[in-house]
């Protein structure tokens, strides 16, 4: 009856069953995605007759035909998506880190007020600003260009990342700042030479999440891009879905698989950074 560590003992006892549940759950979770991959290699006659995991014959037809299913080939849409993502990443890195530096390291009037306001806009639904934004960008002649998708990032509209960076910069010891101040460093030099290099992990999290979110963003790209030459991958996929019948599912799957590769690639390469980012800041993933 007397154990010193009953808690630990029980832990060991429950291991096998828990392991089975967890593995089973994991299989159910990823099965649809893996099935999407193998289904993209099935020939047309199997798309509806064989819902099994493996194709009876493997073919690349879906990839070849899907790639040129629209007026432009999908390389155009992939390049467009990359341009938009790259612009968004650069914009967020510059503007959000600048704002974060001010909030974390500079003493200025009404800082607390502006900080609260910034936090307040994190949860602001995009709906309440999208119509006037559309009118403004239309007035500028920016509809059917990438500017409505990139310029806002240079103006730090993704305030969540400001918050993330502020939290990180606040945790950097001030000794370095003081030493730099004594050496006559200006705020700009301090931002550029001391804080930015030290904030690399948080900047990387910002860059990766900006890339992933922009890559799979659909709503804004759907609204602002109406000309097929400017389509990004999600908008092109939607047009492909609308224009093709059910018979094109194989091709749709093939393009879908390619469209998920950049996200999965980033995830595999920066897994630890991403998961820590979610765990520490509550990024919604």
């Amino acid at each position, binding site marked *: 009856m007397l154990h010193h560590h009953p808690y630990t003992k029980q832990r060991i006892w429950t291991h096998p069953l828990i392991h089975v549940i967890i593995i089973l759950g994991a299989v159910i979770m990823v099965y649809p995605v893996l099935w999407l991959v193998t289904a993209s290699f099935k020939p047309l006659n199997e798309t509806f007759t064989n819902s099994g995991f493996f194709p009876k014959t493997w073919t690349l037809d879906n990839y070849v035909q899907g790639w040129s299913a629209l007026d432009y080939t999908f390389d155009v849409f992939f390049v467009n998506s990359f341009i938009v993502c790259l612009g968004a990443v650069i914009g967020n890195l510059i503007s959000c880190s600048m704002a974060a530096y001010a909030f974390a390291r500079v003493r200025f009037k009404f800082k607390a007020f502006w900080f609260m306001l910034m936090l307040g806009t994190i949860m602001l639904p995009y709906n309440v600003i999208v*119509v*006037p934004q559309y009118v403004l960008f239309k007035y500028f002649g920016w509809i059917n260009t990438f500017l409505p998708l990139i310029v*806002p990032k240079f103006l730090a509209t993704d305030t969540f990342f400001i918050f993330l960076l502020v939290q990180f910069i606040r945790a950097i010891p001030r000794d370095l700042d003081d030493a730099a101040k004594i050496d006559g460093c200006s705020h700009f030099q301090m931002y550029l030479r001391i804080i930015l290099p030290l904030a690399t992990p948080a900047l990387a999290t910002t860059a990766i999440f900006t890339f992933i979110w922009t890559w799979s963003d659909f709503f804004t790209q759907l609204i602002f891009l109406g000309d097929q030459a400017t389509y990004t*991958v999600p908008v092109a996929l939607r047009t492909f879905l609308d224009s093709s019948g059910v018979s094109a599912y194989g091709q749709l799957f093939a393009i879908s698989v390619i469209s998920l590769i950049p996200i999965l690639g980033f995830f595999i390469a920066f897994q630890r950074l991403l998961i820590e980012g979610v765990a520490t800041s509550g990024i919604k993933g």
Partner: protein
Amino acid sequence: MINIPSKPTRAEAKKTGQEVQRVRGFKLSKEGRENLVGYLFLLPWFAGLLFLTAGPMLSSLYLSFTNFNLLSAPEWIGIQNYIAMVQDPRWFNAVKATLIYVFASVPLKLLFALALALLLNRGLRGLAIYRAIYYVPSLLGGSVAIAILWRQVFDGNGLVNEVLGWIGIKTTTSWIASPNYALGTLILLAVWQFGSPMIIFLAGLKQIPTEYYEAATTDGAGTLRRFWHVTLPLLTPIIFFNMVLQMVGAFQAFTPAFIVSGGTGGPVDSTLIYQLYIYQEGFANLHMGYASAMAWILLLAIALFSALAFLTSRYWVFYQDERR
């Protein structure tokens, strides 16, 4: 600007009153410099706030009281849009679909997230791999690609019916074409993405000191009581955080409903979630005044539910600091 050494010398320290005033003036100008620097660093954000957030917010409030089709100038019609809303059966359909979607998907998502976090927190080998696998759907789930997959999976001859066939249930029901089940498939898609709240729960579980469990065990508490009296109370702040975050996100879901229903919100408006209806009215029918009014009602609804969550939180959210 006057060039003054950053540190006062001994001579400066012995200055007369008048000169001290000058030094104070210098101090002030240094503060002024800090102010200037702070505002310069914030300049991009200020521009964004003014032109892309606050400005548009106010103009959309104005537009909500107008008739506006993008082509001609907005025409003031008072509260007509808001009256039209309560007389619009499709608006009620949208509200209904959204409330069902939010209040079914969020609790289920949190339940799965918490359950898996508890299982994964038992210190088993390979935790990093399982955590990563469970997180993948959160990463991919919002994309058009996965929505297309979902459309096939729940179609008449899709994956779900195939799997049901394996266990002896033969059916060709198209789940996405059925008014009773279509919204359910979207809820399932949202719940499938429980990985990100799960990771936040896992981080929270790691924060709970093992001494609490040891003390509880010494007092004779079993697994259930330890969960009920130690784990759960200490996790309530994180449950609260996840709940608000997921709720605000769920109110704004768009992509899955748009792709799965082909942009219609059908069958019979069963998947017409709010953001989709705003899109249809604003950007397909160019009723931008009406769309703005709907957006403001959504903002108020989100604010109301968040406020409710905060107000009730004092009855169930337990902060450790409060005990002191």
